[in-house]
């Protein structure tokens, strides 16, 4: 396996520019998720790394080998990238074994290698001669992964690999794919629009917006220190309030909150789980406008006296009703941004 380095990659379709100078580095053996809403250019980036689409400019390096520098490019079949597209895209006319061994030279298509790969992908051996349509969604996904891993590629590219699976399966399929990738020691680049998927599976998450990578960080780092308010809202959801910082305290509509930000006018970020509802009269008074019940937890929409809307998450054991008057207490430190800018 080898590291992936993307430097200043640009791409436009006609006069619609999709990638505006993307930089990204995936370390050898790392699993990086590219997270973004649809149309942010993440799939195009993946297809440029795979070699299906040419970049207009910039450079893509796999290990020490430049595969794309805007002028010339190496054909996809000579790059040594494993590609796992949406829904797996197994060859419908071939059985599981033939799918997995497809990329190997004739001489290497041995029973031994097949079993090795089935084991690696945590698939039972008796699946080998089934046609793809008889497999479950999760099994198809793992066959696609085994097929991509078979020729020992430099890097594995996964394009929304779990989007076609239903919610329950998605989590377990994601965990098993991560296990397989780690076990194979693979360098992997995963594209997704699902923030839960990105945060739970990846070593590092790259947030993409409008053709730029706006932040690369560990999942925890991204959640705790989002680079700007928009990223904060996209990753984890958040309420944003204007504030004045003076000596480590941010003066907000919710009172004075602890922050590490320097003095000045800022916006502070409040995660839903930081807002604790209090019915005993403590905290800033607010009115409950809407309650969404999720079983283990509830999402409570609130409004302050000045009309500011807030979202809180709490245990369902203390579910308020719309119209209730409650107090809001903020737990923990808050992150602050310069208004409309970066942290």
């Amino acid at each position, binding site marked *: *396996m*080898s590291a992936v380095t993307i430097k200043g990659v640009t791409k436009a*379709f*006609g006069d619609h520019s999709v990638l505006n100078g993307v930089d990204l580095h995936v370390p050898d053996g790392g699993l990086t998720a590219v997270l973004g809403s649809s149309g942010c250019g993440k799939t195009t980036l993946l297809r440029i790394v*795979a*070699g*299906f*689409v*040419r970049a207009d400019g910039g450079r893509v390096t*796999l*290990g*020490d*080998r*430049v*595969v*794309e*520098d805007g002028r*010339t*490019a*190496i*054909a*996809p*079949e*000579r*790059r*040594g*990238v*494993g*590609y796992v*597209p*949406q829904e797996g*895209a197994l*060859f*419908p*006319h071939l059985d599981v074994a033939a799918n997995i061994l*497809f*990329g190997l030279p004739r001489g290497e298509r041995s029973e031994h290698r097949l079993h090795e790969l089935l084991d690696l992908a945590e698939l039972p051996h008796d699946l080998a001669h089934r046609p793809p349509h008889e497999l479950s969604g999760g099994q198809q996904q793992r066959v*696609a992964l085994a*097929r*991509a891993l*078979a*020729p*020992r*590629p*430099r890097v594995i*590219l996964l394009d929304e690999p779990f989007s076609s699976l239903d919610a329950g399966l998605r989590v377990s399929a994601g965990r098993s794919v991560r296990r397989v990738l780690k076990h*194979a*020691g*693979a360098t992997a680049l995963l594209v997704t629009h699902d923030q839960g998927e990105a945060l739970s599976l990846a070593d590092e998450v790259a947030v993409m917006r409008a053709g730029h990578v706006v932040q690369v960080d560990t999942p925890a780092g991204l959640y705790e220190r989002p680079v700007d308010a928009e990223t904060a809202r996209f990753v984890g959801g958040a309420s944003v309030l204007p504030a004045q910082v003076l000596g480590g305290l941010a003066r907000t509509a919710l009172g004075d909150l602890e922050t590490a930000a320097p003095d000045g006018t800022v916006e502070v970020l409040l995660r839903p789980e930081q807002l604790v509802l209090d019915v005993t009269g403590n905290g800033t008074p607010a009115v409950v406008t809407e309650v969404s019940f999720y079983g283990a937890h509830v999402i409570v929409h609130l409004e302050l006296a000045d009309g500011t809307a807030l979202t809180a998450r709490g245990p369902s054991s203390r579910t308020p009703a719309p119209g209730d008057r409650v107090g809001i207490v903020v737990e923990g430190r808050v992150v602050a941004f310069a208004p409309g800018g970066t942290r």
Partner: protein
Amino acid sequence: MTATSTGTAPTEPGSAGTGSVRNGSTGTGLSPAYVAGIVVVGLTLIPLGYIVVAMITMGPAELVELLWRPRVGELMVNTLKLLVATVAVTTVIGVACAVAVVRTDLGARGWWHAVLAAPLAVPAFVNSYGWVSLTSSVQSYSGAVLVVSLSYYPLVYLPVVAVLSSLDAAPEEVARSLGRSRLRAFLGAGLPRLMPAVLGGALLVGLHVLAEFGALQLLAFPTFTTAIYGQYRSAFSSDAGTVLAAVLVALCVMLLFIELVLRGRRRYDRVGSSAGRPVEPVTLGRWRPLVLLALVGLAALALGVPLYSLGHWLAVGSSTAFPVGELTSALFSTLGLAAAGAALTVLMSLPLAWLAVRRRGPASTALERAAYLANALPGIVVALALITVSIRVVPSLYQTLPVLLLAYAILFLPRALVSVRSSLEHAPPVLEDVSRSLGTSAWATLRRVTLPLVAPGIGAGAALVFIAISTELTATLLLSPIGTTTLATEFWSNSASVRYGAAAPYALLLILAAVPATVMLSVQARPGRVRS
């Protein structure tokens, strides 16, 4: 892990020209697929182009003189009244049969479906041979309407059955819950969703009636098609014949236009994605004997009469002499022509199908539509145009195999196109991307991934064309090289000179040749989702 391919600098000319690397701007250049598609469409538009050019070069005075004749008026009246009556009769029979099979507790659903689709296996000219050889009283307008309708009602029945049995019950159930009776619920919420199928079937009947030559010639009912043939036989390639052909083409275009306007821009497909449930069948009750009688009567007229007649003439004919030698030579030349024609047609459909599926856009759509337009032309017009063009442009090709095969390809291209196109849709480009990423070259990907996936569709398309060619009469009659006889032409020369016994074995082989296609079509439209 190590890489499979050795590391080289990216100095190789790269993959830009290999076709699989898409960069969004493809399609601005003229790719080989476009060139091939344009050539194919150019060939299919020869007949239409010939008619247009002939009309322009003829000049208005001569045109008016040739058009404004009592003979043309008489043909116009005949053709139109036959067209209107057969379209109306086939639509009523086709829809009524479909409703009876799918929406009632008739029973033996699969069996009735097979019986009602079966007349498709009897070519119209064989059916009219069956009737005419029994009684000359069908050689009249009403006889022509009867016989032609019996041959063509499955063209309405099959698409309507297919749609009716896949129609979701929910809209009609909602209509019932809103206070409508069962009939009014069907008329208001069911029938509108059937309209595209009904219109499509009626259009097909109309185009077949306009193109029908053999049946109407035997039924002695002159229309434009038979008149063009007569003109050709007496004066070879004449302006009078060309003008008649132009009027016929205008009628075809008018039919296409009417269908387009009636169909409109409305969408009738389901909102939502699940398959839905079929409607509960109607209990026939005391109407059952009447419905059964009607269906049995229809089957007797559409199948019983031609088969009885055929059996009769086979018995009479075999008591004299059975021309084994001529029969086998006609059979083999038919099979050879059908195989070669099917190969050429499928080959021509490939670039159009590729463009339609993989290079969606206005240019691809225009090319595909043009190919379908050419198919609306009657065989007689295609034959006449190819004769004239080949004589004027490449005289050495006149009455040779290539021209005949081209006529087949023009006539039957859409049959191949539909199959090849849908099979290509089952081979999405992402599979080729995966294959390339696994180290497989573009050619190996074509061989190992794309071809295995589209082969069944190509086979089905070739089979449909093969069968259509083996029962084709009109173009074969005009274009086949001297000395080449086929089942259809041998049948024709015998039955046209009233040697009904001698024609019978050929008729039998023609029916046998059409059976596989009929089975294929009726299975596709099978009312399978409805359980009785």
